[in-house]
């Protein structure tokens, strides 16, 4: 009986067209924005996780001192301005008149409380990396704080884009490892200054939010926001087409071309922060490269610049984008997406030339090529496994027999950290939008004492690059720092120990004419910045 009614309702709605289907079956209405997201938060405690999907959800409820704009440029947030006072002190001037959801005022006390709370409550995907430079927070007056750092920290404002401010009053009793999850997940401590108030959340389920009318940027367009976690790309898109949700993120490259032609759907495209990088082990001995018959080699051929260039010349980046990613990416020649702070226009464009690659290999002493095991993640970023197989095809063209291993990230990263691979590819996201984060981790020689080179898993070492990066890290003048990073980038890319292939792009899809949005580089889907089309 119920079923029959429902089917009738469905058929009726179908007759009225897609717009009506939304109201008949889904929960959508003019004032509610229902978003199907691929990944959701891990907790309602903003300090628990540093994951992008976590921050995406948290930005609805909480604010940060420093705001990261659509293109990751840093802008004033809860802090109106900031400046370095000396080598180890940054001054932050806080915004006045900002209210928390419970009506209390936002002050310096909340900033100090939030920063000091992080080391206590953070989970394994730790936020510590964003506040580890801060030694002490000194309150000067209710709207001025001084951050004492452990040395010159030129990029401290960039580190703060994921530093969420919680209310020190509401969160006071919920700031130990045991009490924090219960306090925040129940909503008792989930009091922020953000555009939306917390209503309810279930892990891997729905996050329901209600508009906060006293928001300092002015109140948002949607009265209610529901973020439904739908990890399967096809199911998420099907939910959009069936009218269950108004907007979905991460449209897969497989669906994008067809969606662009769909008259009932609007799509929004942005460059992501992720670049796919091939990484070539630079140690004297390397485990996974062999001669053409599979026997071990006396020395690591990847240390030969000619071999590295040959591999680079084998890669047809345009085909990678056009075929493997079906257009959802752009060819790239360096470790960061175009336009980021430290991106260099001087790095030459990379064009495929397999014939020349073959010649270089012969000159390097491999006229018949060699054999290697290529490792990549297959479940971390869109297209990673497919790009990996594409690389295998392309390397075969210059006579390098490639055994492709596209594997789960839960196997890949532990082994990669133990340096078990010789040649491997994974994506790297320049989450802060500037070079110190990316180049400092990947391109500096491993130097734990300087907190540099932590992710340099190929032991790449160029003294000149190290020098430039160290100088840039201490340079507080933006223009000079930028020039130093660009120089470093030129050198790194010329060495070809890191071979960048493509920048991934991200697509959102929405019901036609439903809404307007400026797609963000950091892939966030922020309801406050999405407005109804009418």
């Amino acid at each position, binding site marked *: 009986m119920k079923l029959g009614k429902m089917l009738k309702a469905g058929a009726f709605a179908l007759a009225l067209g897609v717009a009506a289907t939304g109201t008949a079956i889904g929960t959508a209405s003019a004032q509610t924005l229902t978003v199907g997201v691929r990944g959701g938060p891990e907790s309602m405690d903003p300090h628990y996780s540093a994951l992008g999907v976590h921050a995406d959800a948290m930005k609805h409820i909480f604010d940060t001192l420093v705001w990261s704009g659509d293109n990751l440029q840093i802008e004033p947030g809860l802090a109106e301005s900031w400046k370095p006072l000396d080598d180890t002190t940054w001054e932050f001037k806080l915004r006045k008149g900002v209210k928390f959801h419970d009506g209390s005022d936002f002050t310096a006390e909340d900033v100090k409380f939030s920063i000091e709370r992080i080391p206590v409550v953070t989970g394994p995907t730790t936020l510590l990396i964003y506040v580890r430079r801060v030694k002490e927070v000194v309150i000067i007056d209710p709207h001025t704080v001084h951050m004492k750092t452990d040395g010159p920290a030129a990029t401290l404002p960039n580190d703060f884009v994921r530093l969420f401010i919680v209310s020190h009053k509401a969160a006071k009793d919920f700031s130990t490892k045991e009490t924090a999850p219960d306090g925040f997940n129940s909503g008792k401590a989930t009091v922020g200054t953000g555009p939306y108030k917390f209503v309810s959340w279930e892990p891997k389920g729905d996050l329901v939010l209600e508009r906060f009318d006293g928001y300092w940027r002015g109140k948002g367009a949607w009265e209610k926001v529901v973020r439904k976690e739908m990890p399967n*790309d*096809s199911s998420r*898109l*099907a939910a959009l087409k069936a009218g269950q949700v108004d907007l979905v993120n991460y449209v*897969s490259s*497989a*669906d994008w*071309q*067809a*969606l662009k032609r769909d008259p009932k759907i609007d799509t929004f495209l942005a460059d992501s922060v992720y670049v796919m990088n091939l990484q070539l082990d630079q140690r004297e001995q390397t485990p996974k490269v062999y001669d053409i018959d599979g026997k071990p080699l006396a020395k690591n051929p990847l240390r030969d610049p000619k071999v590295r260039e040959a591999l680079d010349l084998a890669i047809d980046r345009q*085909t*990678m984008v056009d*075929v*493997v990613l079906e257009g959802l990416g752009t060819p790239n020649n360096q470790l960061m997406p175009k336009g980021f702070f430290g991106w260099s226009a001087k790095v030459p464009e990379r064009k495929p030339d397999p014939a020349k690659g073959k010649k270089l290999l012969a000159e390097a002493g491999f006229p018949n090529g060699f054999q290697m095991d290529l490792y990549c993640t*297959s*479940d971390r970023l869109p297209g990673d*496994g*497919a790009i990996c*197989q*594409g690389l*295998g*095809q392309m390397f*075969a*063209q210059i006579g390098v*027999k*490639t*055994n*492709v*291993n*596209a*594997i*789960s990230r839960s*196997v890949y990263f532990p082994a990669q950290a133990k340096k078990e691979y010789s040649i491997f590819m994974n994506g790297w996201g320049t989450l802060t939008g500037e070079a110190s984060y990316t180049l400092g981790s990947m391109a500096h020689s491993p130097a734990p004492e300087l907190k540099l080179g932590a992710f340099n898993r190929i032991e790449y070492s160029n003294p000149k690059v190290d020098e430039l990066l160290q100088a840039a890290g201490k340079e507080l003048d933006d223009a000079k720092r930028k020039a130093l990073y660009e120089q470093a980038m030129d050198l790194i890319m010329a060495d070809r120990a890191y071979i960048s292939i493509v920048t991934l792009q991200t697509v959102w899809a929405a019901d036609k004419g439903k809404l307007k949005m400026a797609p963000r580089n950091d892939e966030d889907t922020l309801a406050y910045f999405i407005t109804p089309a009418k």
Partner: protein
Amino acid sequence: MIDTSTPLGRFWAGFRENPVAVAALTMVAAIVLVAVAAPLIAPQDPYDLGGLSLLDARRPPGHVGSGGYVHLLGTDAQGRDLLSAILYGLRISVQIGLLAGGVALAIGASLGVTAAYAGGIVETLVMRIVDLQLSFPAILLALVLVALLGQGKAQLVTALVAAQYAYFARTAYGAATAERRKDYIEAATATPLSRARVVFRHLLPNCMPPLIVVATVQIANSIALEATLSFLGLGLPVTEPSLGMLISNGFVYMMSGRYWISVYPGVALIVLIVAINLVGDQVRDQLNPRLHR
């Protein structure tokens, strides 16, 4: 003509009466043949990355690729000829099904028969473990084992064997308990024959009929289980796609109308499993003594 004086002859005579089962058996035989001969008849070696071209990727059935031949069933996202990929995929599926089924049969039957013959503490222990495992869903066990062992054919077969041997052990135990009470076993035990000889030469062969029935079902189950694990991303490596992997890789293209990447491997998989199950069904009906009273 068929010699109905031997058990096999009588069996075949019965089998022939069911045309559906005969057709299914023919289909199974054809698929096994095709799977064995895949490297000879497939237009392309789908595992040789050097022989693929990305420019041929996701072409619909009938497309003439850069290799100069027609891709009868289209190509996948890496430019693989789907027909070749399916033939090789069938090869993997059949291989894994037979291997996992065979090893599980060997281990399970030995355990079951030994337990039945030995009795006492061995019997209790073995059958308790088997019963417990039987109630535990095979998919979950296989899932955890594959996560534990990692990717690869050997690991997958190990996981499937571990998940399935219990069915054989239970069946063999049941048959052997009934069998050992019979006079000839009592008589054999009384002779100076070694115990192992009694178990494996006398007891086991007489437990075979029900085991064969379970084996057909379990081979089909192994194949389906492998496909499911691959679908969940825990199966074989992507560079050597099994049928399950092909289906799962192709599914992302279903919404955009490129159905062939997922549908044809799916059809191949279903035909294979249905055919095996149909044969198994007939065998079961024929070997079930209670239906021939």
